[in-house]
């Protein structure tokens, strides 16, 4: 890991955002009847969407809706963080947004349904005030309105 990143990890006030109490929902039905949505922070967007803004000092807390019908390989990665190796996601978007894997689970009857939309954020958010107060609750509300039972989240 590069030195700059190691120092950042050492001094960033992670404890400031510790969840207390820890929220806990209940899975009200078996997974094979549950509606599932994916959320990634890999900064993926569709070719028609505007990319994320990597130059905002505090991070870009916006999100993109990814339609369930998208061809996974056409998703664009606009995450420019130099803290991770981008080659894996560029070779296979499923590495950080496993849409094809969940389609396979659905085809096998292991999950009940795929939601008609999924959500993508760009994870480099140094000051998550807007994420916590605004954009994460907006996504949560959309998932609730869609009748989603399970959300599967992947970082990058």
């Amino acid at each position, binding site marked *: 890991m590069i030195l700059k990143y190691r120092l950042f990890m050492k001094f960033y006030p992670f404890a400031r*955002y510790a969840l207390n109490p*820890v929220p*806990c*929902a209940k899975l009200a039905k078996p997974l094979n009847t549950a509606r599932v949505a994916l*959320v990634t922070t890999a900064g993926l967007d569709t070719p028609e969407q505007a990319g994320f803004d990597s130059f905002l000092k505090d991070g870009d807390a916006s999100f993109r809706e990814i339609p369930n019908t998208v061809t996974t390989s056409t998703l664009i990665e606009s995450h420019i963080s130099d803290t991770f190796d981008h080659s894996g996601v560029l070779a296979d978007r499923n590495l950080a947004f496993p849409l094809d*894997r969940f389609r*396979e689970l659905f085809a096998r009857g292991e999950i009940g349904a795929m939601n008609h939309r999924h959500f993508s954020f760009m994870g480099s958010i140094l000051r998550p005030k807007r994420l916590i107060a605004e954009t994460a609750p907006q996504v949560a509300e959309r998932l609730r309105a869609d009748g989603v039972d399970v959300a599967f*989240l992947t970082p*990058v």
Partner: protein
Amino acid sequence: MCIQTVGLIQAAIERAGIITVSISLLHEVTDVLRPPRALFVPYKLGFPLGEPNNAALQHRIIGAALSLLSRSDVPVLEDFQA
């Protein structure tokens, strides 16, 4: 920062009554943040589901994560046995 961002979004979704599970690549960050359910995987940043184009490994990781959905003794942070 991705790991913290995932945990904060996860908390908002769980508060809306939707059950969640996430992948973690940084044990120490997830330990402090305490999202409801996370599976720690021993891969480098950028590789949350292990390897590109390795559907079998990706399915093993997803399956291990989904198995945590039955847990209500939150926060749950399990290690994936690679």
